[in-house]
């Protein structure tokens, strides 16, 4: 906590009036901490889900959903901390490509497993109609 306070006070030395708090730096610091903590929570929860869940489709659910949200939150935390516009644009590009490709890859893996006839552990399973489906 004292480290947080010192980091907030350190930014105030650049301001002319020493008693005035630099609210933009405080907002960036809090945004970074909150986003990074939430992103790390989602990433670790997805990893534990992939390790512990009993079935392929449930593991796919855990990994696919939490990886997208966790990655976006961690990249948002880095965007809060970046100083130059170039860095912000690069991180936005990485976030965009992860946002597009991660659900697509998850859907491709799940669809391939369904087409290959991998059964879920519980519940109803309808075999895919392989002769009709030429997609």
């Amino acid at each position, binding site marked *: 906590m004292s480290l947080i306070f010192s980091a907030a006070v350190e930014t105030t030395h650049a301001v002319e009036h020493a008693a005035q708090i630099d609210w933009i730096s405080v907002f960036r610091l809090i945004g970074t901490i909150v986003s990074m903590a939430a992103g790390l929570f989602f990433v670790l929860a997805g990893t534990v889900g992939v*390790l512990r869940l009993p079935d*392929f489709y449930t593991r796919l659910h855990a990994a696919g959903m939490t990886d997208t949200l966790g990655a976006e939150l*961690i*990249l948002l935390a880095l965007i809060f901390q970046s100083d130059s516009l170039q860095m912000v644009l690069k991180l936005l590009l990485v976030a965009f490509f992860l946002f597009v*490709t991660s659900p697509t890859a998850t859907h491709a893996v799940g669809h*391939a497993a369904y087409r290959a006839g991998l059964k879920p552990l519980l519940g109803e399973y309808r075999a895919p109609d392989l002769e009709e489906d030429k*997609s």
Partner: protein
Amino acid sequence: MSPFMGYFMLGSAFLIIVSMAMMLGRLLGGPTLYDRLLAVNSFGTKTVLFLCVFCFIIGRPDGVDIALLYALMNFIATIAVLKFFNYRALDVELPSRNVTGAEDVR
């Protein structure tokens, strides 16, 4: 970067590495091919995140380009491995769609 933010980024990178190491367990001991493929895909996403955080730690913004390249390569590698294990070959002709006849186009 303030010293608090440096330690914070170091801890975040360490937690991402822990998550990657846990994902290796599913990669090595997955019962089916698709479990391993899912683990590889998730591992690649975490690699991209670790590269971005590591670039902030060492203070060089060049590595974000490598992270971007790795994100795209990870997606293409996943699709290529899926296609290989579906068709058992990489240069297979995909089922063609009839372009001229309008009735076969779905």
